[in-house]
């Protein structure tokens, strides 16, 4: 066995130095989430009444609880922190671990870098060990730094450290999952998509399981559920971290077992010969073909998301009625159940919209990836106007998210309209339609970035990130309206309201048009990367 691990130590050292740079932002976000909670909460929600009010607001919109997980206790700083950071930071660290493992193992095989390494004095398992080692160390670091920093900023010892330990736990489990998918996929992209799909599915299932108060086995069957069940600040159970450690070990053992049999640069599925003649003759068809796999995967994801959210919507009034704080709001006549239900649906569709923007941004990023891989050059050496090439990707980046919002929205509409909760199929579909312009604004950010300033291609995600933070977190932080209005989703009217205002959609569409002009003009004028 020792022979297959020769050379791990120097490789791990080099990999750590290079990969920690890409892992650092994930750590920073996790630490920032946790630290900012304990710093900001006492300031924004100083007394009991404020905090009870927040708990009631959260209870009144289960859609937000579905993203962040259940709020067990919002009366203490630590309780608030574990509600706001546990699910989200755990998700982000897990995502960081997946991307790191895929990049350092299969990514290097795809780029040929690993061939140089593998031809050196290097054991068969060393590269996998170094890759997963970086993810494990990075996740551990995230936990240690977040825990210590939170305590230093005034968090109580035990809940803060336990919360931080769940970040590490999430990262470790998904480093293991990614190590397995890295053996299955035929290339780095397939490997990481597979692992991200597992993470996404478990995340949504956990959110829904808590929201609809599903039987407890649905939570215990879900590794992410173990993390939530540690309940920092409302119980402080350390033992659910043990099964997480167990899963990590089992997954890694499986990964190393498969790695020992796998051929270099190949997945489990062998490639077959393809057609000798091509039918793709335009840039439109080419863009479709290049984005085909992720577009299909996302279509399935939105079908599933629509089903889950739709099913959730049918039981939303029961969920609301079971919440004592919400019951008090309803009893006082401050809101009607129908109002809460339609506010819930608006949030649900905004969440679908923000997620739907991701494939849009990915499509534009793919165009940049093609450019960097020198595959745009031969296309433009043909008789192809630049705008047409750019438009081929931009059209997909606009159409696909719109279709996803409509498709996902239609499933929610069908299920919600069938249940007796006071909304019709038409209402929900109209709400989905009203959400689309906001999605387009986010996608247009990436069109502008890739067209005009491709070096900042990470900024293409700015729209998605801002919308997420402002739309879902902003209101609970009592942010000013002008700040909330930066998110295009703030301008989406509730179509069931009598005094709905459509002008906001006009304004954000103007911004969309402006961003498109910037993107297209930029792409026409700039040098193509070589």
């Amino acid at each position, binding site marked *: 066995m020792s022979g297959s691990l020769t050379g791990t130590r120097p490789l791990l050292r080099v990999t750590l130095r290079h990969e920690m740079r890409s892992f650092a932002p994930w750590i920073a976000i996790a630490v920032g989430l946790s630290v900012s909670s304990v710093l900001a909460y006492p300031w924004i929600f100083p007394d009991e009444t404020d905090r009870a009010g927040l708990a009631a607001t959260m209870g009144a919109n289960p859609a937000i609880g579905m993203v962040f997980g259940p709020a067990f206790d919002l009366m203490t700083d630590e309780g608030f922190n574990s509600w706001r950071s546990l699910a989200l930071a755990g998700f982000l660290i897990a995502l960081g671990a997946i991307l790191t493992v895929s990049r350092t193992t299969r990514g290097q095989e795809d780029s040929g870098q690993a061939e140089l390494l593998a031809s050196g004095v290097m054991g068969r398992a060393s590269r996998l060990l170094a890759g997963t080692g970086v993810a494990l160390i990075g996740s551990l670091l995230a936990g240690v730094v977040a825990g210590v920093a939170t305590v230093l900023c005034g968090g109580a010892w035990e809940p803060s450290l336990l919360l931080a330990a769940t970040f590490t736990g999430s990262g470790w489990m998904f480093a293991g999952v990614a190590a397995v998918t890295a053996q299955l996929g035929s290339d780095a992209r397939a490997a990481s998509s597979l692992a991200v799909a597992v993470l996404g599915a478990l995340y949504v299932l956990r959110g829904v399981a808590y929201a609809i108060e599903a039987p407890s086995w649905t939570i215990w069957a879900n590794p992410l559920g173990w993390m939530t069940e540690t309940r920092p600040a409302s119980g402080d159970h350390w033992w659910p971290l043990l099964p997480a450690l167990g899963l990590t070990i089992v997954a890694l053992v499986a990964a190393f077992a498969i790695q020992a049999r796998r051929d270099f640069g190949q997945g489990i599925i062998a*490639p077959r010969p393809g057609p000798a*003649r091509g039918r793709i003759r335009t840039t439109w068809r080419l863009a479709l073909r*290049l984005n085909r796999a992720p577009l299909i995967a996302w279509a399935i994801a939105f079908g599933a998301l629509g089903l889950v959210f739709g099913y959730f919507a049918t039981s939303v009034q029961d969920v609301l009625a079971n919440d004592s704080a919400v019951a008090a709001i309803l009893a006082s006549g401050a809101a009607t159940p129908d109002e809460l239900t339609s506010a819930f649906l608006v949030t649900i569709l905004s969440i679908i919209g923000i997620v739907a923007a991701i494939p849009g941004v990915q499509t534009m990023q793919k165009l940049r990836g093609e450019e960097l891989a020198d595959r745009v050059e031969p296309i433009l050496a043909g008789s192809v106007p630049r705008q047409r090439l750019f438009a081929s990707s931009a059209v997909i980046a606009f159409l696909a998210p719109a279709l996803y919002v409509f498709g996902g929205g239609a499933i929610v509409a069908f299920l919600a309209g069938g249940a007796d909760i006071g909304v019709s199929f038409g209402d929900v579909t109209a709400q989905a339609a009203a959400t689309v312009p906001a999605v387009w604004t986010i996608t247009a950010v990436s069109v502008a970035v890739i067209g005009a300033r491709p070096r900042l291609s990470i900024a293409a995600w700015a729209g998605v990130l801002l919308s997420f933070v402002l739309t879902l977190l902003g209101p609970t932080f009592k942010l000013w309206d002008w700040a909330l209005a930066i998110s295009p989703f703030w301008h989406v009217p509730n179509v069931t309201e009598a005094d709905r205002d459509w002008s906001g959609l006009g304004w954000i569409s103007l911004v969309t048009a402006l961003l498109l002009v910037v993107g297209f003009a930029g792409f026409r004028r700039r040098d*193509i990367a*070589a």
Partner: protein
Amino acid sequence: MDAENVIDVRGLGKSFGRFRALDDLDLRVAAGEVHGFLGPNGAGKSTTIRVLLGLLRADSGSVTVLGGDPWKDVVALHRRLAYVPGDVSLWPGMTGGEAIDLLGALRGGLNEERRAELIERFELDPTKRGRQYSKGNRQKVAIVAALASDAELLVLDEPTSGLDPLMEAVFTDVVADAKARGTSVLLSSHILAEVETLADRLSIIRDGTIVETGTLTELRSQARTSIRATLERIPERSALAALHDVHLDHGHLAATVDADRIGEVMTHLAPYGISALTVEPPSLKSLFLRLYESEEAPQ
């Protein structure tokens, strides 16, 4: 503007940030000729070609390709030219055949007969996927895609890198066929031998500027003949005045001389008793190597 030239570049400059990649570059390729574009790695060959293709924007100077502006008239011009990049990157999931048809279709169509013939001659398997091809085979895909078109101008950027010697020979034949059909060719390379057999005229680029241009004969006449002689007595300085690159070790003399001064040199050396003598005809290689060395000022 000379209507005969398919490529006409005057005073071209291009910078990337502070790095000046091209500086006052002149390049003219006549219709129907194969023009060799030679230079060491990093001299600016690919940058020049990317400007010719309208992928990069010229900072200064005038650039005309097939009578048009490569930046503005992209669509019309690219219907009439075909390009083979030096580093071919194929779509990992698409077969070579699909890539050939796509690139051909984007240019406005392929000559079906020639497509089949080229695949046959290059022994290319068009059913393999992009990620399965070796470097040489990826190169073949790009060559077939470009040469199967009826383009008036072929722009080839180090097209044979990665091809084995047999395939290189096939490539030479195929380009010669294209020339016979009246196609103009800009053939960039850093290897002289590749260009020597095909090119009518050559331009040599160094540090972003053309240092020599002309026909092979013209360039050859600029190269010096090398002389090696064993003399019985050490010659005086004045006897060596017409020689260049003189190395004198006891009686062994090694030097170069301009072709038109060989007789004169012989007359001067004869009195010192020549016991052995080799005179090598001018080699393009020596000129080429001399021009590559950047410390030395160009002639």
